């Protein structure tokens, strides 16, 4: 019998881009059917105004009877490290798995937590913000290399 997987929609910016829920659904449905060979069950949307990720907590609770949860990226997990830590514990206790499509990562056991936390490093402003100009220090360094340019 095919396993059921829930999608998780979060409309906060991912790398500065908000993926519409319809697009998130298309990506998640394709992933569940083609990569996991499962049934795409439901995909509730996170409450943007809430202090904690109530929708995600509902999906990992016993009330939601699925084998796993699928979302676009680890960047959609809660921002707070403490909240994530508690979420990882609950997920492993529930024996559910979690899949992050764009990152090509999955959380299936305790060892995967480190991989996911290492990846969330790249959700910092340093990587996500668009570089629009050089700062004064960079300008100073580049003075001696101004001729090295192709444009």
């Amino acid at each position, binding site marked *: 019998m095919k396993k059921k997987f829930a999608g998780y929609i979060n409309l906060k910016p991912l790398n500065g*881009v908000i993926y519409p829920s319809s697009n998130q659904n298309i990506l998640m449905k394709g992933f569940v059917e083609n990569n996991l060979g499962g049934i795409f069950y439901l995909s509730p949307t996170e409450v943007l105004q809430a202090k904690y990720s109530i929708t995600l907590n509902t999906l990992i609770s016993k009330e939601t009877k699925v084998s796993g949860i699928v979302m676009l990226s680890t*960047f959609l997990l809660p921002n707070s490290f403490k909240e994530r830590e508690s979420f990882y514990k609950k997920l492993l206790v529930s024996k559910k798995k979690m899949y992050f499509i764009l990152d090509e990562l999955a959380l299936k056991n305790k060892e995967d937590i480190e991989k996911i*936390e290492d*990846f969330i*490093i790249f959700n910092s402003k340093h*990587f996500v913000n*668009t570089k629009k100009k050089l700062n004064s220090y960079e300008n100073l360094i580049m003075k001696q290399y101004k001729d090295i340019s*192709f*444009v």
Partner: protein
Amino acid sequence: MKSIQKDFEKNGYVIIPGNKILIEKLRKVIFSIIKKNKKIKIGKDISENITKILNNFHRLVKVKDLNSLRFNIYNQINSKSTFSEIFYKIAKDYLDELVGNELSMQKKINLSIQMPNDKDSLLDLHSDIYAGESPFQVVVWIPLVDAYDTKSMFCTEPKYNKIMNRQLLNTDKFTTKEMYNKNKKNFKFLNIKFGDILIFSPLMLHGNTINKTKETRFSLNCRFKSLLSPCDVLVKSHRNIPNFYRPLNIKPLTKIGFNYIKKYQD
């Protein structure tokens, strides 16, 4: 090795010897996928000569079937990490010199197959920066057979690149095709022997035309940038982590530093 830094700064690209044994390994992976395709009949007389088979691929496959076959190979080579690990090893020493050793590597390795007279596999004059790729990036381009004349790609020189880039970004008078035709003399097809590799800047205008030779070109390409260099530059794009690149060789101090920020940030 130092000279490749100077050559790259001067020309916008370098053509250098790759590890032929490893390139041969990549080629064998692709060939093994091709061999499993029951629609492709390889004559016994050439069944062990991979160079001959790839060069004459247009005799084995019709143009209309090419793209689905290419996608099939693309999906298979990207389904396991070993292919990209070998790809990285081939270019590693040069990437260390040009980019660094703590890297972001494009998640998918692209495969190009360009048959003689195929009008559907063309990439007109362009610069990768126009699609929002990072100027901190390089493209590593590995031919799986000799690439020469129109069987290869064309590229320009920095002095012409500056002029044409400015024109291209500010004109409504001509298309990229017209621009190429008007400036043909400023481009040259790069001759790259099997075993050599090309590394070029995404700022350099390049492309291909109809392959007028009698042989098919197979080539691979993949992008690398320094891990800590900006992904999105001037414009927002999807070509960043996690969409486009995977982190490669994250050093302990990068983890420690960013985890420190992560713990105490708002």
